[in-house]
């Protein structure tokens, strides 16, 4: 009997999606934060931003907030492995005749899909609030959304594989997720920021995601869209590699 690896990946992907669509409260709940940011910051700082000659703040901010909602959802999806371990489902998966890489890859794809969907929802909401992107450029923006989702789901999986329980989770929120978000140039333009912040951003994967989205959506960016995309593809490959290596060491 041979196990169909592709089908197993599909099954693991499907599980993440089913769980996502089943938890309506989670979908709605995680839209609250982006809405708050868009409304409070978008409208609140719009005049200051415009006065300093930077243009419309909502246009600038929306890609950053879309990236933020993908970042949070993706990290959560990866971290869910801890839940699976604690609730026992991980054992069921680990005794299945499927390679550890297949397991890690299937659920990372599932988590990344969920995070991309969440990003798409945020994009729609941003449009309602006042964001006006060029419509035909939404498609390349979705490519960047998927890349951000892949990078951070893989990172979440990698981190979760090394954690015993949820105790370390607060630590990750405060020392990984929040800094990644605030130091990515999501909220402010990096070209006018102090050099230190610019340097930090260069090492921040989210920066390339936000920058890429801005490149295609509002035509203003630090690097070209191609550079951003290339960097993100490389980072996601590295994180997937590290993630599956750490996951292969996981014990139920």
């Amino acid at each position, binding site marked *: 009997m041979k196990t169909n690896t592709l089908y197993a990946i599909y099954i693991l992907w499907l599980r993440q999606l089913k769980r996502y669509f089943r938890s309506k409260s989670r979908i709605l709940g995680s839209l609250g934060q982006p809405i708050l940011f868009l409304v409070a910051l978008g409208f609140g700082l719009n005049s200051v931003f415009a006065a300093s000659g930077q243009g419309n703040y909502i246009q600038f901010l929306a890609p950053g907030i879309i990236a933020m909602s993908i970042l949070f959802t993706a990290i959560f999806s990866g971290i869910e492995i801890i839940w699976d371990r604690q609730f026992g489902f991980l054992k069921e998966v680990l*005794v299945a005749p499927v390679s550890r890489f297949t397991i890690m890859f299937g659920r990372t794809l599932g988590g990344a899909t969920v995070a991309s969907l969440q990003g798409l929802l945020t994009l729609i909401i941003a449009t309602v609030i006042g964001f006006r992107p060029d419509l035909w450029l939404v498609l390349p923006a979705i490519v960047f959304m998927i890349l951000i989702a892949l990078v951070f789901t893989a990172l979440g999986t990698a981190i979760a594989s090394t954690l015993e329980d949820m105790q370390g989770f607060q630590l990750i929120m405060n020392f990984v997720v929040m800094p990644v978000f605030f130091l990515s140039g999501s909220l402010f333009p990096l070209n006018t920021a102090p050099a230190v912040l610019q340097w930090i951003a260069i090492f921040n994967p989210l920066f390339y995601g936000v920058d890429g989205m801005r490149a295609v959506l509002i035509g203003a960016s630090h690097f070209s869209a191609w550079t951003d995309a290339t960097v993100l593809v490389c980072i996601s490959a590295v994180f997937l590699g590290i993630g599956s290596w750490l996951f292969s060491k996981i014990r139920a």
Partner: protein
Amino acid sequence: MPENKSSISVKNLSKTYDHTFKAVDDISFEVPAGSIFAFLGPNGAGKTTTIKMLTTLVHPTSGSITIDGMDPTRDPHGVRQSFGIVFQDPSLDDELTAYENMFFHAGLYGVPRGETAAKIKDLLEFVELWDRKDNLVKTFSGGMKRRLEIARGLLHTPAVLFLDEPTTGLDPQTRNYIWTYIKKLNEERGLTVFFTTHYMEEAERSAKHVAIIDHGKIIASDTPANIIKSASAANLEDAFIKLTGRKIREEEAGSVDHLRTMARAWGRR
């Protein structure tokens, strides 16, 4: 492939945790194909650790294992295909329906897609859960979850079924019910069954062969009747107490309950 009369064969198996603690200490036993084997012992004796080594979840420190002719350390894939397992702790996805839990298992085990639906129906009817197939597992009672886990463990038609305390915490009716299934499976399909339990009458009634483990060592291994006789005891429970002593072994508290509360507070489950 050489004809192997033993479905499970274990020789000088040991597991040492943290370089010092011997959870399983040089045990050997054989389980003939098509038989029911009871693995008994107080809490912390090393039963679950043994099952984890047999089922590829834990790497043995030393010794050898053969399951259905294969070595779990060398051919984990082959071994994984050949056994089904009901873990001591729950292992279902609560957020999925009974049917979905079955369907995902079939997908992971490469059950031919044309056969999946019929097999799931067959097994869910067998454990009398077919009418609840579209209910979320989190709405199930403990007994229903156990029955679903048994059905799931059988979905890929394994040669060996491992049951780690399958009836702990269930009422006598449900326990009786579950044992009726297991015996039927053993008789009708020739399934080899390896189980642990704290209910001695289950072992006395159902097992052809019993091994008693304590502090990681097997201290008795024979038919239930012979064990009772050589301990000059009235029944297996009596013999078990005589062999393992009266001292109470503490069950370790799991962190699962705490987590469930936390998860619920987060609105994630």
